């Protein structure tokens, strides 16, 4: 593994705890030292130019600029707790003794009306406290507020209609989670299925999912900057491509967890959830629970098991559990399971983009024209449709492109509602943009890197205002690319490609240039409104960050923030920041990150998203610490009998500048504020606790021309990689991957690299492995982590990380966010490399082996439905979805007439169908069977209905039917043909079965094998029956699949 640049410098644990001295007179030379030799020159000069812009109460900020901790790879303070297994995650927190546990009944179908819900049997089951349906919820809950004002209300439970597989339909509260889940199976829901629409393009013209809306396009706006029409009309070249980005999710290893309580005396809710923000959603939760914000107290746990944006989507469950607690009259806890999470938590948006670029003869991009069709799933649930607007200001990427047209349409489909996801909105634009740059380079006969270089935002133009309004704050894009080419070894990689190709191997090189926004403008989403609408609703802007720093009576320093970390190490970095301000050891600073809306400072912008920590939250903490230090200096000055401006800090002490012997321990003067408040100078104020709110004046609301500085800081990334594609398996092997980042000042290079590696792993997963797959009928097919393939240690290649550090002039510490960038750059970088290797224009992801094979070989021909050579059966008519298909045959030692009679005799047939509980005739040649079925980790009871049609005795018949139960639903049909042969009867069959619900989500990998096994078993039993031998007793769960598959009855 290679790590280069500033991150090289790592200190051991013992080293950082011992070193406490600080030279307060140290100048910019220390800064240079930390940046490392490769960064001398431009960046230091840039920094020197801006060094006076720090917020400060007096001129004492020099210490923190030159402090020794910020910029060091300090090991994390979180780790000793976590490594002992002592981290307190949501599910580890105490539950009130009277709490009950919730489980959700979820829709097995993608689209349908709920005719009836019968909860009586479930309510009567052991340990059940309550069963709550949408109708119950309606009494206490209002719909979630949405950014787009349309009549498509969403509640925490489905009302009247279900619109995606996994949508919560009812909730059981019981003594424990096992009993709650037991009772789910006893709820009987009658659905009237409606045609589902899964594909966003098809959704545009499909019947509306929401009766109150005119079609499924719920948002449609054009934007125009500069003169794109003229640019396209006069361009020397126009290139165009249509790209689709898939659904994926970062799938944190800890699922959602909520504990809710309701106090009817105060009409107030108190909720603990592993929520991550943004706290705009707090308003939505409170409104939905019909209380003002101050009666919806929300707490977060000390540790959270990852999120990457995903845990934003716990908010509907906060509302559901709040209502449940209110109805039950006691606290309610819910812990999501993995299937629920994958199927129904949230996902990235899938998007279809047609992108055109106009270029001049030299390869300068004159204009871009985006036509984006965004699929937000069944509802535009907050913060959607934010995915499509987060990047609005930087839609021109890292390029200086003056003319831009954007057409944004947002559709709803029968899939899970989308939401925050690491890289939010980034991969959806950079996949088309950077694929198209390669296409343009090929068209012009230019090297892809050269074409990109010709279009970069010039260093001298920084800060640079893009056409759609972003203020790119700092960077030396061309210089960073040069350094990455040199230090990452691009020339050697090209040589490797040449030799691999000379040997006939499929080897390719890809690259991507990306601007990574951080610190979202709270007003960017209002870009979707027209200027007139914005005028009416009032401006939304800014991105407030807040932090509190305090001295306690023992003189110890405490920090509290509302950044709600999910594993990034905020406590470590803030200890570094504050230790620098007070020139003490970071070990002396205690940082609390669990948050309580009733007691801790917060704003709507609070939370862990949009890479806002390093720029905004660390900056606010720095500001608060400086304010506190200024007040402490007044107290200390009196104690030391010196003027306040002569107070200096170092070695954990406060001393007189120029006379270090005149000193006090740091905590002595601080403690005085608690113990002797009458004895400190009035100017120091009472109490040593400072809460800072840091604002960003650059984050104005959209202007009348729809220009929006959608983020506060913009990092730069240049990635390139070499890949080799296996000619037989189409497996993609990443030979080498280089990622260059300029995220401004690095606060802790080790943690920065950790963020980059994590983002890279998820970006690589999005490129090659991960997809939340849906069948055309809306069935969800990736319900386990064996179906949804996240990269393991075997797939992650060597990663070369390079850094430049162009400090942001707009953040207090010069830092920008960097954790999301590789989720934006890596998918397209790998796709470009694979495209180079295989010589195809790849327009979708992920590039799994099977997808790549399909692209390169063409779609696999469907299996022939008429497999029997002797009696070709008609092709089943049910082929409109992803389904199991199969065919086969067997020889039964009896005449066709005997077999025929058996098949039509319900009493005998029941014995042949393995494990059938009951088989009853419901009409002529129609049966109802009661079966239990289990596939993979789930099992449940089903009611199957089967009709025999097209009877041609004793030659052929058609079976049509379906099954429904808590596991899901199926429908299918099959043909049986009987042919008289020497030894008896040759039975041939074909079948097609569509499956949805849990079985489709978790059992996909096993289904074909299970079907084959069951069919074999059926025929074995049939042979036994006609032989007159005893049929073995009903067997296990798999055996029962047969009747469910519609083959048996």
């Amino acid at each position, binding site marked *: 593994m290679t790590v280069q640049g500033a991150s090289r410098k790592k200190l051991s644990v013992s080293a950082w705890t011992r070193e406490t001295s600080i030279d307060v007179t140290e100048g910019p030379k220390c800064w240079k030292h930390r940046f490392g030799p490769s960064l001398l020159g431009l960046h230091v000069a840039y920094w020197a130019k801006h060094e006076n812009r720090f917020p400060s109460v007096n001129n004492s900020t020099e210490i923190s600029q030159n402090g020794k901790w910020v910029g060091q790879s300090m090991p994390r303070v979180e780790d000793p707790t976590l490594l002992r297994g002592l981290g307190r995650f949501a599910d*580890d927190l105490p539950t009130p003794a009277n709490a009950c546990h919730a489980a959700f009944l979820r829709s097995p179908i993608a689209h349908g009306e709920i005719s009836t819900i019968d909860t009586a049997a479930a309510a009567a089951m052991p340990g059940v406290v309550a069963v709550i349906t949408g109708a119950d919820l309606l009494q206490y809950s209002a719909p979630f507020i949405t950014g787009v004002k349309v009549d498509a209300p969403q509640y925490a439970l489905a009302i009247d209609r279900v619109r995606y597989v996994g949508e919560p339909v009812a909730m059981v509260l019981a003594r424990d989670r096992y009993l709650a889940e037991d009772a789910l199976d006893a709820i009987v829901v009658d659905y009237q299925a409606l045609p589902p629409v899964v594909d966003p393009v098809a959704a545009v013209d499909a019947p509306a999912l929401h009766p109150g809306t005119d079609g499924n396009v719920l948002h449609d706006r054009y934007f125009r900057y500069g003169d794109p029409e003229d640019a396209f009309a006069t361009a020397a070249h126009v290139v165009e491509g249509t790209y689709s980005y898939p659904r994926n999710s970062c799938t944190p290893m800890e699922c959602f967890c909520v504990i809710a309580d309701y106090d009817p005396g105060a009409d107030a809710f108190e909720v603990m959830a592993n929520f991550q923000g943004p706290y705009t959603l707090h308003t939505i939760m409170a409104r939905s629970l019909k209380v003002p914000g101050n009666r919806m107290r929300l707490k977060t746990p000390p540790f959270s*098991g990852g999120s990457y944006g995903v845990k934003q989507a716990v908010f509907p469950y906060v509302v559901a559990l709040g209502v449940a607690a209110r109805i039950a009259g006691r606290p309610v806890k819910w812990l999501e399971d993995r299937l629920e999470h994958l199927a129904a938590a949230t996902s990235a948006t899938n998007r279809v983009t047609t992108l055109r670029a106009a270029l001049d003869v030299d390869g300068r991009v004159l204009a871009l024209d985006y036509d984006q069709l965004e699929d937000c799933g069944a509802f535009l649930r907050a913060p959607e449709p934010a995915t499509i607007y987060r990047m609005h200001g930087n839609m021109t990427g890292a390029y200086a492109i003056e003319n831009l047209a954007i057409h944004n349409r947002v559709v709803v489909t029968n899939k899970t509602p989308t939401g925050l996801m690491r890289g939010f909105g980034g991969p959806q634009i950079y996949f088309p943009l950077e694929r198209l740059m390669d296409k343009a380079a090929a068209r012009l006969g230019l090297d892809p890197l050269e074409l990109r270089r010709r279009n970069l935002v010039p260093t001298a133009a920084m800060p640079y205002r893009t056409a759609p309004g972003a203020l790119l704050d700092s960077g030396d894009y061309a210089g960073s690319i040069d350094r990455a080419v040199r230090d990452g070894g691009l020339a050697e990689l090209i040589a490797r490609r040449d030799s691999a190709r000379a040997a006939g191997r499929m080897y390719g090189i890809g690259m991507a240039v990306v601007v990574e926004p951080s610190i979202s403008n709270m007003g960017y989403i209002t870009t979707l409104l027209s200027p007139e609408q914005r005028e009416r609703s009032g401006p939304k802007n800014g991105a407030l960050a807040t932090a509190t720093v305090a001295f306690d009576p023992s003189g110890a320093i405490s920090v509290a923030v509302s950044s709600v970390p999910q594993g990034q190490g905020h406590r470590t970095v803030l200890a570094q920041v504050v230790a620098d301000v007070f020139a003490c050891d970071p070990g002396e600073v205690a940082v609390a990150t669990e948050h309580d809306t009733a007691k801790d400072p917060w704003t709507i912008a609070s939370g862990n998203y949009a890479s806002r920590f390093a720029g905004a939250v660390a900056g606010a903490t720095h500001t608060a610490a400086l304010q506190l230090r200024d007040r402490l200096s007044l107290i200390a000055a009196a104690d030391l009998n010196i003027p306040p401006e002569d107070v200096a800090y170092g070695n954990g002490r406060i001393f007189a500048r120029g006379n270090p012997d005149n000193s006090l321990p740091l905590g002595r003067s601080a403690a005085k504020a608690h113990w002797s408040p009458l004895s400190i100078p009035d100017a120091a104020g009472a109490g040593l606790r400072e809460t800072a709110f840091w604002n960003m004046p650059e984050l104005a609301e959209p202007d009348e021309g729809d220009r929006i500085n959608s983020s506060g800081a913009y990092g730069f990334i240049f990635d390139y990689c070499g890949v080799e594609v296996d000619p037989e398996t189409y497996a993609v092997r990443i030979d080498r991957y280089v990622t260059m980042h300029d995220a401004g000042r690095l606060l802790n290079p080790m943690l920065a690299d950790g963020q980059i590696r994590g983002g890279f792993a998820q970006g690589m997963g999005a490129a090659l492995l991960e997809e939340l797959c849906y069948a055309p009928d809306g069935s969800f097919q990736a319900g386990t982590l064996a179906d949804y393939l996240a990269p393991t240690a075997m797939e992650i290649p060597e990663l070369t990380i390079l850094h430049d550090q162009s400090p942001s002039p707009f953040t207090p510490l010069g830092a920008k966010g960097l954790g999301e960038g590789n989720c934006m750059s890596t998918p397209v970088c790998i796709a470009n490399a694979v495209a180079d290797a295989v010589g195809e224009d790849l327009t979708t992801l992920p590039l799994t082996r099977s997808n790549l094979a399909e692209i390169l070989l063409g779609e696999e021909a469907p299996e022939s439905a008429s497999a029997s050579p002797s009696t070709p059966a008609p092709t089943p008519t049910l082929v409109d979805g992803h389904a199991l298909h199969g065919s086969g045959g067997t020889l039964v030692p009896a005449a066709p007439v005997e077999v025929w009679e058996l098949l039509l005799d319900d009493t005998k047939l029941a014995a042949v169908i393995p494990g059938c509980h009951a088989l009853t005739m419901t009409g002529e040649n129609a049966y109802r069977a009661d079966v239990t079925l289990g596939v993979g980790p789930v099992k449940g009871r089903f009611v199957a209905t089967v009709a025999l049609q097209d009877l041609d005795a004793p030659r052929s018949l058609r079976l049509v039917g379906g099954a429904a139960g808590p596991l899901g639903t199926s429908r299918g049909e099959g043909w049986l043909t009987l042919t008289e042969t020497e030894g008896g009867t040759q039975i041939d069959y074909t079948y097609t079965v569509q499956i949805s619900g849990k079985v489709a989500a978790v059992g996909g990998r096993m289904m074909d094998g299970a079907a084959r096994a069951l069919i074999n078993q059926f025929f074995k039993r049939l042979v036994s029956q006609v032989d007159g031998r005893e049929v073995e007793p009903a067997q296990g769960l798999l055996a029962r699949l047969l009747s469910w598959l519609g083959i048996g009855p």
Partner: protein
Amino acid sequence: MRYLEAGKRHTVRFTLNGRAVEGDAEPRLLLSDFLRQTLGAFGTHVGCEHGSCGACTIQMDGKAVRSCLLYAVQVEGKALTTVENLATPDGLNELQAAMQKHHGLQCGFCTPGILMSLTQLREEEPNADEARIRDVLSGHICRCTGYDGIVKAALDVFGDVFGKN
């Protein structure tokens, strides 16, 4: 073999990190739930309950097992070790310290299972090389780190940092 009745609680006795423990469990109660909810041993985390993610890995009679794929009643008389057993009174053990040093964890949710699998590997193959370490780690999903720090931590402890094995 004991006859166990569904729906009825049965007393289960075993040793957890060297101490005798007991509790009542229905036959269907997962071991992971028993450890966490009945015994309050929260160090073992549950990430999928499908046996795919590895977060709940513990050692049972010296073998790494997924506690979400075992029932509590199956561990009667066994010796179980969990992440809480790794640190010494003096502090983190070698592997834990290496994980901190190499930034082998971020959210820390998958970490207990990874520590237990690496502990198992170290007991069985103290000279395992990087390929073998990655092979074992492939039974775990970590969404934060990209595995780099974990592999480096393991190599530190397995003594293969210079490829000497």
